[in-house]
Structure formats: structure tokens, C-alpha cells
């Protein structure tokens, strides 16, 4: 029953996010096509198809790079924002409305409340991030003879990153008792993760943490796709982070007082 309620509460927000992601993907795709036209790529494409003597792949490098950027960099941003927002809004919505006591006095295991939130939130995040990438498929097919596979192969890594951020945002909100506090804590953790290793390296010349951090971000670097076995390791790391936050949330709700 709580799943129905969770979807009922979040469907408008999730639909809006998905529409925004789809629109973004289409706009980026159209921009790439326009840019390619501006640079005469379509003439090259036409010549290549008729005369078969130009290096087709070489000529299409720029639009391909742009689409790669859209999926990877914008996808990362979408995963971060969707993860933060969805994670904080679900449980934070119950705190904010003062309904946590009502939810927790239903005769059901408390873990089901957490699992239901994740069952609704994670697919939404996956659809939102995918919503940005999938409208690009026809454009990718147009500008790259080998098809969109290489770029879209990076989507699972983005989804896993989104799941980890969702977990962080969800757990901090659950622990702090409000969406605003949870979001603040989550952003603080992300900023610390981003800047502390660099500061450590700059100030104390210790690069261990910096190298470890860079390793975890390998999957999102330029030309990292398709992922090698090493980068799958980094992706697995983020999956483990997401699972850890789920485990922490399940443990926390068991003892949570409201």
C-alpha cells in the first residue's frame, strides 16, 4: 500500500523530471545536428556515401564528441540532481508533512517502508538519466556509422552513480529528520569528496586519497567508454556505496525515534 502512496505523491514530480530530461536530450541532439550542418558535415556524409573515399569516422569526430559530452557530463549532472532530489524528497516528505508517526504505526516491518521508497525512487532516477540519453540515439545513429553503442554503454555507470547519490541523500535525510538538512549534509559530503583529496595533496603532499578518488571516477572520464575491466571495478565501487547506504538506512529505521 505504501508503494501506491509513494508513487501517488511523487508521480507529478517524477513526470516533470522525465519531461525535462527528454526535452534536454532532444534539444542537445538538435544542437548537434545544427552544429554538424554548420560545419558542413552533412556534405561530407553525402560525399562519403556516394564516393566512398573519405575517412568517414574522422569527419564525424566532432559531433560524436559532442554527443558523448551530452551523455556523460550532462548525464552525471542529471544523476547527481535526480539522486539528491529524489532521495531527499521521499522520506523528507513524510518528515515535512508530520506523517512519519502515521507511517511507522502501520503494522508492517519498518524495512518495507525504506525498501518501498527505494523501489519507487531508483527506477525514477534510472528513467530520468536515461531520458536525457535516449533521445540522442537517432542523432548518434545519424552522425556515427558505428552506431550509438559506445556512448550508451556508459549509462549503467551513470545509473550506479545516481543510485549512490540517491542513497547518500536518502540516508542523510532519514538520519537528520528533514529534507533540507539531509540535502545540506549530502552536498557537504559531495563537496568534501570532491575537494578534500586535492586539498590534502596540495597542503600535505599526500596523494593517496586523491588517487583513490580518481580511481572511483574513472568510469566518468573522457574516453572511458566502453568501460574496461578496471572501470567496471570503479562502477562496482559505486554500486557498493549505494548498497551500503541502503543497508545503513535499513539499520537506522529500525531504531529511529519520531
Amino acid at each position, binding site marked *: *500500500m*505504501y508503494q501506491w*502512496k509513494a508513487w501517488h505523491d511523487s508521480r507529478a514530480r517524477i513526470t516533470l523530471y522525465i519531461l525535462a530530461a527528454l526535452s534536454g536530450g532532444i534539444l542537445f541532439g538538435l544542437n548537434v545536428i545544427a552544429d554538424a550542418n554548420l560545419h558542413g558535415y552533412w556534405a561530407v556524409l553525402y560525399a562519403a556515401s556516394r564516393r566512398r573515399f573519405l575517412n568517414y569516422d574522422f569527419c564525424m569526430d566532432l559531433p560524436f564528441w559532442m554527443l558523448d559530452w551530452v551523455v556523460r557530463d550532462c548525464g552525471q549532472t542529471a544523476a547527481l540532481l535526480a539522486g539528491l532530489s529524489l532521495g531527499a524528497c521521499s522520506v523528507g516528505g513524510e518528515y515535512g*508533512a508530520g*506523517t512519519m508517526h502515521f507511517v511507522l504505526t502501520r*503494522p508492517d516491518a519498518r524495512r518495507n517502508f525504506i525498501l518501498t521508497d527505494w523501489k519507487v525512487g531508483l527506477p525514477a532516477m534510472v528513467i530520468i538519466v536515461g531520458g536525457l540519453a535516449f533521445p540522442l540515439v537517432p542523432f548518434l545513429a545519424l552522425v556515427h556509422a558505428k552506431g550509438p553503442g559506445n556512448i550508451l554503454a556508459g549509462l549503467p555507470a551513470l545509473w550506479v552513480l545516481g543510485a549512490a547519490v540517491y542513497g547518500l541523500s536518502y540516508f542523510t535525510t532519514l538520519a537528520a529528520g528533514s529534507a533540507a538538512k539531509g540535502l545540506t549534509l549530502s552536498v557537504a559530503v559531495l563537496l568534501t569528496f570532491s575537494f578534500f583529496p586535492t586539498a590534502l595533496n596540495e597542503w600535505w603532499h599526500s596523494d593517496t586519497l586523491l588517487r583513490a578518488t580518481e580511481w572511483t571516477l574513472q568510469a566518468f572520464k573522457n574516453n572511458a567508454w566502453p568501460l574496461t575491466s578496471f572501470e567496471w571495478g570503479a562502477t562496482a565501487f559505486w554500486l557498493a556505496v549505494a548498497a551500503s547506504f541502503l543497508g545503513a538506512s535499513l539499520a537506522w529505521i529500525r531504531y529511529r*525515534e519520531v
Partner: protein
Amino acid sequence: MNDLAIHTEGLVKLFGKTRAVDGLDLKVPRGSVYGFLGRNGAGKTTTVKTLLGLLRPSAGAAQVLGFDIGRDLIAILERTGFVPENKMLFGSLTPAQIAHFNQGYFPKWSNELVARYANFFEIPMQTPFSKLSLGNKTKVCHLLALCQGADLLILDEPSIGLDPVITDLLLRVLVEDHVSEGKTVFLSSHQLAEVERIADWVGIIDKGKILLETRLEDVRQNYRLIRAAGDAAPAISSPDLMAVQSSENFRSYLVTRQADDFAAMLRAKGMTILEILPVSLEEVFLGLTRKEVPCISGKPGMIPAHA
């Protein structure tokens, strides 16, 4: 089967160094209407939340309907209807949708009762909960608790926002539909008139401790206010003495039983007995919980004998 619907022994709940509930011993008989009375901050809501697993006890033990609150919480929640103090439910859903949501959790849920009470309490079932008035929100909370087929109703400040007509209807429903079927009602409130109207047991809590737990009938039959005059105020120690009030011309003694014996003791100490009066629940409550501060006129009020 345990004869007690709620039984706590030495229940303690600490918030930091504050003892919100301080060694609480409660015995709520099955099938009773139990008025759990106390001032603001006395520990009523903390006790209720602890019984329902929303707070974890710091010490002590508690059983609800024979189930331990630590081990068998789901069994307790399945059998307990709860109206919370803040009367907040899902704002985006209508009462009909909230009832549908709740139905999935309770096997004994009755849609017939939903229709009956919605009509009875005049609840707008298709208006989003967030747009309802406080009174209608309170009614929806009661509707949910009443329709789930609970063996125990725990109602925290049940009449907040309700007009006198609906309050009257609610009290009748509680007695006629619920208590008459052998179910238990636990009313946590400081609305003494409502409690006095339907309760058969009362417990008075202050500063986390139970000061009095007795049958209301016992209060009516045995508790007395003795007014006595005399030159000196004698030092009196008696287990029957609950509170003392001094005024310019006389002193009032609130005693729990054996009022005649107590009056005789006062006479023996040189006091003149002016009158012996029956007391209301309000007088007992005020006598037990009033702080040792002057009343508006600047004269001292009734002071608990235990203070």
C-alpha cells in the same frame, strides 16, 4: 489471556538528562475506558509513543494487549487504533484514499463502518486532507482508528478541533460501538470533563510519574474535601491525605478515603470541621498537579501532599 490491555513496570524514557517518563507503572484493565490525565509536558504523549514503538524505552518493561513492545510491535500495531496528537495524515490524499491505504494493513477493516462514520461525523471524503479544517482532520484520524477493528484504541488529545456536538457524538460512538464490545479505550487528555463523562478508570501523571491510578467510581464514592478552621495548622501525615490548601480562614484537605476518621484526627488536633464535600475529578487533578505557586489573588493554592 492477560487481563490488562496496557501494563508498564518502571517505564523510563530519557531525553538527554530529562526524565520525560520516570518509572511509570500503569495497569489499564481490558474493556475499560481509561483516562490518562496530565498537564502539558507531564509525559502523556511520550508514554503513548513509547507504547507504540515510536520511542524506545530507556528502562523498564511494557506490554500492550499482552505483547511486549520491544519484541511484538507489529502484533500490537495490528490490534491498536491510534489517534496521534498532531492529527496529520497524507496531505495529498483524500480521506477516502487514506481509508483505502489503511485498509491494506488491517485484516479486520470494515468499509461499512467507514461509510457509517463518514456520514455520522459529516466528513468530506473527497477533499484532500491538507485542505480540511482541523476539526475534520481530527475526525478522519478517528475514522481510521475506529474502522480497523482494533482491540485497543489509544487516543491522544482526541477532541482537538472538534465542536461540542461532534465531541458528544464521538464519546457516544466510543462507548456504544467500542467499549460495549469489550474493547479498551485509552484516552490521553487534559479535557477532564470528557474523561469524567466516559472513563471508568483514571491515571494522573505528572513529571513522568503516575500520581494516582484508580477507578473513577472510587473518586466519586470515597474522595472528600474537608474544610477545617483553627488557630494553628497542625502537621498531619496520613497516607489518605492527597493535598492541602490554605486560605485566610480555613484549610482544605483532599483525602482519598476514611474522610470521617481523618476529620476526627483534625478535631483531636484542635481544628473545627466546617464541611466535608464530595470532589470532582477536576478538583482531584488540580489538587495533585497544581504547582506550589500562589493563585491569582496571591494566596496559596492546593498543594499536593507529596510535594
